[in-house]
């Protein structure tokens, strides 16, 4: 399945330390297909102009391409209204936007923000900063040993005080896919606003915001074949309309006098300054590429690799895999006894294999599990079982060196 795909990715045929590259760090950032790279180049070569205000053909074309991507994004995540799509620089900015423009305005002392213990720093730190400004409290849904959420006692966490619930859809450490629909329903039952950090889920599966029912959803282009520097915040139009602006500047205003300003309609109210035009075009090309393959096949390929890798890695003695949720994505965190993850990664690197070692920007959960770091391999549509074999082989080799 997913045949001939690797040829679309120029970097995959390059080397790492003079060995053929085995790229297993797509959860950090994915490689880019020819189609995306070319879309960006060809924008600069034949369509580059500022958007929205130019009375010349070049600018009209650029505007049209830019706004068409907004429609594809809306379509891609299952909403009919492109006005609910805000272009940001990434998941991090998307979440911060909500924290500043919704959180700081609407949260009061003793209100509660509810997240989970398995969040990425980008869904923790913005809320810690928000609590400082507003006096609200930050609470955590705990996790179980197996890397899933402990939802046994929802009344304890979802209360009248809960005003905002922000959850990671798929853990970038364990791969756990959280029951966000259920969590959103709990949140709604207490009247809280909901945010889904979909940085790891949108690249890998069909996500439908209308089905999820979330108020906001955030993700990054660079984790789904698109350029760096581009992200998305989906927001329900009614909420976006009521929100105060975040960044001030051009594009986001309707009119400005010396005394005050009025805001542009959504989504422009939240897109201050010259947009990330070429990056948006690149995101459009990435979505087109994914749509062509079909997200069902993308997901299936990920699941196939995941299963294969879980079995292969389990066969290595003295290797511990963290998390064993039944519903999980193509990401595996593990450690090998007596080999520090950073040493392991360094040895794998020597064999051309790129994996990640560290806390994966999720220190609270690492601390809770008594770990300071793990090694993480993550797979995407261009990876193969042969690459997983190479990974296992290199792990075994390294383990042997360290246990002499």
């Amino acid at each position, binding site marked *: 399945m997913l045949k001939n795909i690797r040829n679309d990715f120029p970097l995959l045929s390059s080397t790492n*330390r*003079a060995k053929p590259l085995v790229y297993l760090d797509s959860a950090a950032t994915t490689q880019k297909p020819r189609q995306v790279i070319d879309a960006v180049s060809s924008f600069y070569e034949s369509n580059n102009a500022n958007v929205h205000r130019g009375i010349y053909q070049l600018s009209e074309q650029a505007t049209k391409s830019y706004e068409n991507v907004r429609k594809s994004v809306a379509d891609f995540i299952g909403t009919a209204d492109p006005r609910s799509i805000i272009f940001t620089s990434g998941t991090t900015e998307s979440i911060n936007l909500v924290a500043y423009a919704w959180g700081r305005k609407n949260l009061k002392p003793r209100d509660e923000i509810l997240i989970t213990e398995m969040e990425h720093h980008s869904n923790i730190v913005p809320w810690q900063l928000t609590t400082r400004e507003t006096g609200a409290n930050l609470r955590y849904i705990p996790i179980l040993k197996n890397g899933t959420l402990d939802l046994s006692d929802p009344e304890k966490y979802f209360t009248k005080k809960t005003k905002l619930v922000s959850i990671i859809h798929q853990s970038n450490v364990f791969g756990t896919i959280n029951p966000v629909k259920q969590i959103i329903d709990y949140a709604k039952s207490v009247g809280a606003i909901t945010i889904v950090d979909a940085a790891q889920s949108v690249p890998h599966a069909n996500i439908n915001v209308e089905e999820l029912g979330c108020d906001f959803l955030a993700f990054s282009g660079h984790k789904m074949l698109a350029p760096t520097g581009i992200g998305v915040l989906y927001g329900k139009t009614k909420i976006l309309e009521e929100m105060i602006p975040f960044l001030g500047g051009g594009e986001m205003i309707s009119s400005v006098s010396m005394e005050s300003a009025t805001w542009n309609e959504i989504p422009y109210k939240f897109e201050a300054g010259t947009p990330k035009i070429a990056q948006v075009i690149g995101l459009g090309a990435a979505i087109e590429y994914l749509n062509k393959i079909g997200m069902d096949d993308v997901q299936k390929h990920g699941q196939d690799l995941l299963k294969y890798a879980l079995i292969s890695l389990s066969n290595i003695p003295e290797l511990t895999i963290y998390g064993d949720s039944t519903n999980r994505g193509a990401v595996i965190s593990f450690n090998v006894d007596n080999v*520090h*993850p*950073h*040493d392991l990664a*360094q*040895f794998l690197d*020597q064999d051309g294999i790129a994996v990640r*070692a*560290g*806390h994966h920007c999720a*220190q609270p959960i*690492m601390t809770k599990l008594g770990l*300071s*770091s793990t090694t993480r391999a993550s797979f995407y549509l261009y990876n193969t079982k042969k690459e997983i074999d190479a990974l296992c082989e290199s792990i075994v080799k390294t383990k042997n*060196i*360290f246990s*002499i």
Partner: protein
Amino acid sequence: MDDFRDLYQQVILDHNQNPRHFHSMDNATHEADGHNPLCGDQIKVYLFVEDNLIKDISFEGSGCAISKASSSLMTTTLIGKTTDEATKLFEEYQTLITTGKGDTKTLGKLAVMSGVHKFPARVKCAILSWHTLKNALNNKNETAITE
């Protein structure tokens, strides 16, 4: 490949397996914590100093082979040195692991760490214990963070 062999020399693998002075110290005159934010590893360095002479030194905590070997080598190197000598060595050592250059005579066994400079992501591993040592000597209570 040679760069890599330089990084993980047998001496380093050995010090990783059997770190010297890898324990806490009850009668320490100085101690400090160190933290490498890149990986989350934490260490603690203990010193027993009398008349500016480092009479004993030990460490504990988590870390990679580079960090463990570096700490272990630091302890074996510094016992018997004055605090001034330690400070000077710190500078020599810093140059070594960031540039690969240094006077092998002054550096002694520390010279095996010269391979680190080819792997910029690991420089912090090699310097962590030394930063922590410096804080301990200066009686700084804050956690040393590799820069």
